[in-house]
């Protein structure tokens, strides 16, 4: 099973890197660019066939390591 975990900053958490990226897009001449927020994507291969088992493992991975839940949210997608 393959999984994709997306980690993003919670709303309200300052994202100076996203701001700098947004500023750079504007300076490249892209019009109409509003706020930019950056995050991380993890593609994970799992030796697991049961969907609910996989999701509970992935949730534990997010809580223990992949996200710092003080400042970050995470979403999990799975595919075969």
């Amino acid at each position, binding site marked *: 099973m393959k999984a994709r975990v997306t980690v993003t900053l919670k709303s309200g958490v*300052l994202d100076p*890197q996203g701001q700098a990226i947004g500023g750079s897009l504007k300076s490249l001449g892209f019009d109409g660019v509003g706020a930019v927020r950056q995050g991380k994507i993890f593609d994970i291969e799992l030796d697991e066939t049961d969907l609910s088992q996989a999701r509970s493992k992935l949730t534990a991975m997010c809580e223990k390591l*992949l996200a710092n839940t003080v*400042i970050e949210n995470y979403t999990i997608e799975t595919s075969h």
Partner: protein
Amino acid sequence: MKSAVIVFPGSNRDHDMIVALTKLSGQAPEIVWHKDTAIPDVDLVVIPGGFSYGDYLRAGAIAARSPIMDAVRDHAAKGGYVLGVCNGFQILTEAGLLPGVLMRNASLKFVCREVKLEVINNQTPFTSGYEAGQIIRCPVAHHDGNYFTDAETLKSIEDNGQVAFRYAEGTNINGSLNDIAGVFNAEKNVLGLMPHPENLIESAHGGVDGQGLFNGLLKAVA
């Protein structure tokens, strides 16, 4: 005072800390590797500065899940002193031993300079060597020192005297909330701070303002 310094792959201020502890306490600290699972019987455990695991994922994130950290947690739970400086502060927040998180500096720049710190709570073993409100000099060198926490936690650490140091005189160089440079846990036996007191302890460093932190601990364990 018996002490131990934890070393991770990528620690680079460990030797500065070893020199400072040896000079000020009169005994060399034990050196403990991150893969160890036990810490010798000591009064103080120090997590030094550096770039453990190259700051991969988030600064301090991977080191905080190292085997040795359970022993650090046990030491703190028993009331032993734990000090984290710079990357050590990041590791302690990632390990859940201190509240909050250290984010990328608001300027996005690595900052290496001297700052001014105000001593906020001097009623702890770490800070009793200073006066409350005293302004001290201290060097900083970091890229991820922007202290952040949610509003509720911020209020609780402010109300509980858990703010140890604030950047003073306009020297908040990283965007930290409430100018916070160092925080205690609720019990005040764990301290993390971004500045490097171990780098200002002898005249050759250009000052001795960092000595107060070590002197307070020496007095507490005497």
